[in-house]
């Protein structure tokens, strides 16, 4: 089949074009076309929290700091210098000579305005957790500010570089009113200081960005070289592949392993498998709220853990950049130790444990999932081999989360991307601090996590988190499964670097 596609492609290239195909093929008209299956209607880093907008947020806006995605180091971006005055006060020197897309100059007023707007809960920033830790910003000089925090917040710099983008002073003041009388801040025309500026938006079809010619020279993001970047919404994977193979697209990701491997064999496009911050896990109904009490017995949880061949799933379904994990976090996150109880693949032991627990012939239960059905299918297949019959209910994320919060899922096989925050607090504390997502509500774990979340001493944090992670894995509240890996497929014309945080930096892409 592949060979016939190749000959077909070769023939097609040689064939006479009928002239009806509009050419927006990348390099020839200096436009990088990329697509995902998602529609983006709101172009604002605070009023849209989709991954697509996180990516475009870094194109259109700059934060005060820049975090090097590979080394994890912080570098100056809109700030030139920063210093903690005490553990709730950060003093920042701002860069001079930076221009917004509308031509106005960047100064302290813009930072004060941005912080004031976003830290006000009434203004409805979607992921308030990203900005709610700031109390206010205070202007000290035309290019010097102080940011005051509500309380000590160890991850402040990470958030300042990835989630706090500076908009010009007064940016949201003339936002149109929504039907309910509130301001529709997301409808404001985007203006930032970033390397690209948005020029066209057709919701559900495309968003077009053009190079910001006045972009400041000293930026660690580098100078943009590609003239235009167009984001397109294409729902169907086959359509994306067809466009990529015919030059209508230059870049896609989330290509499943089988397709990616075949594209790689064919050699017409660049295929790359890269790490992500997302992990896959299975959460057990430890306290039996769902009515199916099997998993209140630790032996049954152990049987499940021994029955699932995580290595095989990782190797055969996810991709080479994926790895099996043993603790309830991503190994790249701060304080995520793998020095915990490890549950190896051993179906015989699983059967023995089931027998001990009083289920020599296995049992039947409901498993819930929402993402990459084939991964869950593989889990179901493994469980079937030791006699456990899992019935899959596949739901949308929100619907499933609702059920999880109500405790109605005997096992939910879910994923968490930690919002790309490289810190254990973004995942373990989110799930095990006794909230709605917490399957166990274990007091020891809750206490240890609280200690880690509030301490500013890195070593103390590591100690505290390790205590929590060890208990979670030993008691099997979660069976941590594996880290996700993503396949990127892009045109050979494109010089592109993948990053482990799932935020492709299109602004630094070049043509070969």
């Amino acid at each position, binding site marked *: *089949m*592949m060979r016939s*596609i190749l000959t077909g492609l070769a023939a097609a290239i040689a064939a006479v074009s009928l002239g009806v195909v509009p050419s927006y093929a990348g390099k020839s008209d200096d436009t990088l076309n990329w697509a995902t299956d998602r529609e983006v209607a709101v172009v604002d880093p605070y009023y849209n929290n989709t991954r697509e907008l996180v990516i475009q947020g870094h194109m259109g806006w700059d934060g005060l700091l820049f975090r090097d995605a590979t080394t994890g180091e912080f570098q100056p971006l809109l700030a030139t210098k920063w210093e903690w005055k005490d553990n709730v006060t950060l003093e920042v020197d701002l860069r001079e000579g930076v221009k917004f897309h509308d031509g106005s100059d960047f100064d302290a007023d813009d930072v004060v305005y941005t912080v004031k707007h976003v830290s006000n809960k009434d203004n409805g920033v979607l992921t308030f957790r990203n900005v709610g830790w700031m109390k206010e910003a205070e202007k000290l000089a035309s290019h010097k500010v102080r940011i005051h925090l509500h309380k000590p917040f160890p991850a402040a710099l990470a958030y300042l570089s990835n989630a706090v983008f500076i908009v010009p002073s007064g940016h949201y003041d003339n936002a149109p009113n929504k039907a309910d009388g509130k301001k529709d801040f997301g409808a404001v025309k985007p203006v930032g200081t970033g390397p690209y500026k948005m020029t066209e938006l057709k919701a559900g079809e495309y968003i077009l960005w053009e190079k910001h010619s006045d972009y400041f020279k000293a930026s660690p993001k580098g100078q943009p070289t590609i003239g235009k970047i167009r984001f397109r919404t294409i729902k169907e*994977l*086959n359509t994306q*592949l*067809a466009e990529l*193979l015919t030059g209508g697209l230059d870049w896609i990701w989330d290509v*499943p392993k*089988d*397709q990616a491997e*075949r594209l790689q064999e064919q050699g017409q496009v660049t295929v790359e498998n890269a790490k992500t911050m997302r992990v896959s896990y299975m959460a057990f109904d430890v306290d039996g709220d769902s009515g199916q009490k099997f998993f209140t017995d630790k032996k049954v949880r152990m049987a499940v853990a021994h029955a699932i*061949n995580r290595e*095989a*799933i990782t*190797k*055969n*379904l996810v991709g080479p950049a994926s790895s099996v994990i043993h603790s309830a976090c991503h190994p790249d996150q701060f304080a995520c130790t793998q020095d915990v109880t490890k549950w190896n693949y051993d179906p015989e032991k699983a059967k023995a444990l089931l027998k001990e627990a009083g289920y020599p012939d296995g049992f039947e239960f409901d498993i819930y999932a929402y993402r990459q*059905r*084939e991964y869950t*299918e*593989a889990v*179901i*297949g*493994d469980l*079937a*081999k030791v006699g456990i019959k899992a019935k*899959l*209910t*596949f*739901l*949308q994320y929100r*619907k499933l989360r609702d059920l999880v919060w109500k405790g109605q899922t005997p096992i939910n096989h879910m994923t968490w991307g930690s919002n790309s925050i490289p810190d254990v607090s973004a995942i373990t504390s989110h799930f095990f601090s006794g909230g709605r997502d917490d399957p166990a509500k274990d007091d020891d774990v809750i206490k240890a996590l609280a200690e880690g979340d509030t301490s500013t001493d890195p070593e103390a944090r590591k100690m505290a988190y390790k205590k929590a992670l060890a208990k979670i894995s030993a008691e099997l509240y979660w069976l941590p499964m594996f880290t996700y890996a993503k396949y990127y497929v892009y045109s050979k014309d494109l010089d592109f670097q993948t990053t482990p945080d799932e935020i492709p930096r299109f602004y630094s892409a070049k043509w070969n």
Partner: protein
Amino acid sequence: MAVTEIKSDAVALEKAIEPSPGALLRRRVFSHMGLMIGGGILLVILAMALLAPLISPHDPYDQILDRKLIPPVWFDSPKVTWAHPLGTDQLGRDYLSRLFWGARISLLIGFAAMLISGVIGTTLGVLAGYFGGRVDMVVNFIITTRLSMPVVLVALAVVSLIGSSLTVVIWVLGLLIWDRFAVVMRSATQQVRGLDFVAAAEALGCSTWRILASEIMPNVTNHLIVVATIEMAHAILLEAALSFLGLGVQPPEPSWGLMIAEAKGLMFFEAWLITIPGTALFLLVLAINLLGDGVRDVTAPENRN
């Protein structure tokens, strides 16, 4: 002379053994190509479905990740093996076995959805056709309301809101596609109601239910069968469309629609993955349609068009 004699003998013989109506019907059935082909294919698929546990070479749920995506035996690839005549799918499950077991699910969906919609539609249609007047008006109103709701959209919305499973899919489809039953049964009943024997039964004082059961129903059965085949095919295709969008039957159940949906991502690379269940689905729907057309032709030759 001798020839003529033989000929006239043959005519005489034919006259002597005038075929019974049953024999006539049988003759029409066996000489109707569409009906024979359709019936034949359907029988084969039915046999596959019923005998799946006996004839499947493997367990359809048994995955061997190391042996995934083995092509069917007619492919020129070092991976092919007679252990998996139709190859294996993305999770290393035997495709032939899944095809056999998938026949069960696809037929089950088609049949169950058709049954549900048939009961609803026939009840409404026959009542409207028999009683007329107010009842007819109300039923007509219900039919119009149902027709004005876009089927695919409503099915998708409902399935996505309450969560997808085999039972949900069957009920949603069954509750949505009864309109043709109602429309056809209504007009068929109207026709039959005007006939003499119904009037005779009424004059004899038979109860309404008795008349409906023993006079009306037997005489609208041929229409019922035709609509039933159309709706069964319709339900099977709708399930395939729902599966394509990820809201049909849930894995690991192997419905043919789901097999196509799971393989669609590899359409440009491993086309056989989609061609095999696709052809099976196509043949099933084709067979059901041919059967329906055949039944209509054979039972009512005057309506052949």
